[in-house]
């Protein structure tokens, strides 16, 4: 299949339907086809399938509806690999969330094994319509995180959206060891010169990884807890989508920022595995 595909798993719950406005908007931006996927224990006729997912036939215009049998997470991942999916857009959880739980079991398993970025929509977002005017890319200054820039830049360019890059200066964090990293200027000898030089350097290093030509890009410096700053800036700037780079570790204190942002941000989060 050569046409871009976005996988949208729906399990029939009302929570799961929260993803549809986001998925539809992303499909229009990217010229992609939605593959609405339902995983159950047995097959159903198409209309019954739609009914089970809470959809009307009009809801699936310019989409394709698929049913699979088996473990939901495995089926979703298989579908993503087979179609070379560009994105998976899914709900963080469809059953009532346990306290402090960030993702439901299926969402977590999909995130861990996804061959493409995953857009996570919190059911409480209750987005009636969704448009992509502004993306927020938190960036820790490391070249590895810049890998998340490419899908963000592509989306922003297609949507004509603004890309806001956020770097958070945090106490208790040493400078990253990765070569080529850039942090806020530790020595701010004369801010009237350091700030423009730093901003320019930060953006140029990003542009080295991915062309920013044609994009509206702004750089913002926050301070304090990275998660809190991401949530704050996202709210203040009416952000429609947060892009987070994730290195694949989840247990314990790993991915603390990702977990907090997914739980607390008022907009969807796209997780890019780097």
């Amino acid at each position: 299949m050569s046409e871009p595909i976005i996988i949208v798993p729906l399990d029939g719950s009302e929570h799961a339907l929260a993803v549809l406005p986001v998925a539809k908007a992303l499909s229009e931006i990217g010229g992609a086809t939605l593959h609405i996927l339902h995983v159950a224990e047995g097959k159903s006729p198409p209309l019954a399938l739609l009914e089970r997912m809470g959809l009307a036939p009009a809801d699936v215009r310019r989409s394709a509806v698929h049913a699979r049998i088996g473990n939901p997470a495995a089926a979703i991942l298989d579908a993503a690999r087979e179609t070379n999916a560009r994105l998976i857009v899914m709900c963080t959880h469809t059953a009532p969330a346990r306290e402090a739980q960030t993702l439901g079991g299926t969402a977590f398993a999909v995130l861990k094994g996804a061959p493409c970025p995953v857009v996570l929509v919190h059911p409480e977002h209750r987005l009636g319509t969704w448009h992509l005017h502004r993306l927020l890319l938190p960036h820790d200054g490391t070249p590895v995180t810049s890998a998340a820039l490419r899908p963000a830049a592509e989306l922003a360019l297609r949507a004509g959206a603004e890309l806001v890059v956020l770097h958070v200066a945090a106490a208790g964090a040493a400078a990253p060891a990765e070569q080529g990293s850039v942090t806020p200027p530790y020595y701010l000898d004369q801010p009237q010169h350091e700030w423009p030089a730093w901003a320019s350097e930060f953006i140029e290093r990003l542009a080295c990884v991915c062309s920013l030509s044609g994009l509206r890009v702004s750089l913002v410096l926050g301070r304090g807890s990275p998660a809190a700053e991401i949530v704050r800036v996202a709210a203040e700037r009416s952000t429609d989508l947060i892009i987070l780079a994730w290195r694949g570790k989840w247990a314990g204190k790993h991915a603390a920022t990702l977990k907090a942002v997914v739980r607390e941000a008022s907009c969807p989060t796209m997780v890019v595995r780097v």
Partner: protein
Amino acid sequence: MPGRSRLNSPRSAGQSVELPATPTTEPEWVLVEENTVLTREHELESLFAIGNGYVGSRGSLAEGSPLSAPATFVAGVFETAPGSVPGLATIPDWSHLSMAVEGHPVRLEAGTNLEHRRILDLRQGILWREWRYQDAAGRVSRVRGLRLASMADRHLLIQSVTLSPENYSGSVSVNAVLPEPTTWRAAGTIIAVAAAQHIEGPASPSTEFPVLVAGPLALDVELGKTYRLDRLVAIHTSRDTDQPVAVAREHAERVQETDVATLIEQHRQAWLDRWQACDIRIDGDPAAQRALRFAAYHLLSAANPEDERVSIGARALTGSAYKGHVFWDTEIFMLPFFTLTYPEAARALLMYRFHTLPAARAKAAHLGYRGALYAWESADTGEDVTPPFVIAPDGEVVRIRAGALEQHISADIAYGVWSYWRATSDERFLLDAGAEILIETARFWASRAQPEEDGRYHIRGVIGPDEYHECVDDNAYTNGMARWNLETGDAVTRLVAGRWPEQWRALVGRLALDPDEPGRWLALARDLYTGFDERTGLFEQFQGYFDLEDIDLATFEPRSAPMDVLLGRERIQRSKVIKQPDVVMLFYLLWDCFPPEVRAANFRYYEPRCGHGSSLSPAIHALIAARLGDGTLAQRYFRQAMEIDLADNMGNAAGGIHAAALGGLWQAAVFGFAGLSLTDAGPEPHPNLPLHWRVLSLRLQWQGQQHDITLPAQGSPAELRTKEAKR
């Protein structure tokens, strides 16, 4: 703009063509980068910059890269973009050289880099490159290169590149043409660049070498042979001559008459002469050794004793950050190195301040004061070019008040003048320039300090070296230096009047100096508020400082951001956190004016409260800690100072090297670890060497004498040898 080709006799078969010089091999003389990480390219271009004080050129990849920012700067040539302040003009890339093998571009990111290293040869002042590159077709080329800004001929830049096809013969296209135009205008200055370039190669039936390079060309190359491009570039400006284009062309033609190897040897010898005068040798700490040589290299690359109308900007000639603007950095942090090892260069730097005295007088008058108030940031004219505001990355529009309020710079310059005089007894300088600077800066303070009801004079509404606190009253550093400036102003009037009465009369007439003025300066100095508390032995950094919030900086560690970012501007202004040494800086400069217990008490008080938000801070802390006998703390700060440019984890150096920090590092070694005091009898060491420094030896000039000082490990006596200094 080509010159004539130089006709050499054809090389005989088998005769190899190699680079006309060889790199230094001792590791403590070189900075080596292996296997380029392209995202670090801006930092590396700064670190590997070459220069000679007239021209400076970033160490950019000759063929370029997605992140390359090549730039060449000519000292003193500024241009002003609309709506901006003046900045050093950038000349396009004179060293650009791209090649393609059978149509495949030879670029770092295009093929496979079997080996790649860049080497900054500090001893010879040469940037080397060694590269084995494999293209997609499997062809392996060995490329070696050198680049330098001649220290023997400051208008001359030299580049030499060899190409050796290891496993192929074929066609190589070379693009070594200077970008058009070769004449630029920056504000009112014309910059002319003339190049002469040719390719040498082994004798060949198809090509007679040398081949003049006047445009892109294709060359047939043979497996196992080496071909070399030599490029000689002459730069002249309308600051140097009325005919920069003709002079540049003539210069390029003339240097072609001399063998490239000879030109390089002349440059090399000039560098060796400089190292003979200034090298510090440390036995037992290779990292510190290399860092000190790196510091001296960049300071020497920035200085031009032949030009009195330029100074050294915050990033020297290595990058466009800070726009080439000159700060107190020069006189307090860099000048000591030159005063004691290269006095001709020190003199030229101070003459810049003399030539910009009219602008300093104008600034003082504009603010309602007498005498000279030097610009906080200056370019070529001495007018203040401090940007008035900046938009911080959190969106805040920050008003920059340093231009109006950071006035200690006048005293800092006076301090540099007096230090130079003490070191050299350069009468001509004192009479022609130095005395006038000392008098006019004293005059400024005499008008700036105001008498108040308490019977004291006060200086209100300033910014001291600690820029976290603005518009403060009676900053201890400012008042302390002002007091010194007033006293020294008086001293110089008595000196000149006593020793050179005729010149004194002329000076009095020129400056309309009232006979009572020096006496009034002394009285004012005596009554100037100091902020010293007899009970605690502490100087209050400014009025009200002791009432501010105390913040434990240790709770923020580790961190990679400055404290004013982490706390926010408002909170830091309400706190005791300081940006850099302020009271402590005063003690360093006026060491003997304070008793030991006061120095120690104030260092112990202020050091834990310093957030080191300035690159000027760590070296001074290393110096003071060493002098106070706290070796552990001194070494920790010394390492921090060493790493400002040389560590590769923060992108610090992308916009240029931190020239003042490098000068501070040198001072930390000389006045901290070696503990030198400069007395009328000569330099006296009071060493506090780190235990693993087996020997520290250095050379400096003082009062016309060359002093060689060797400080062995702790417990062994120092060796001092003195002889007449070379002129």
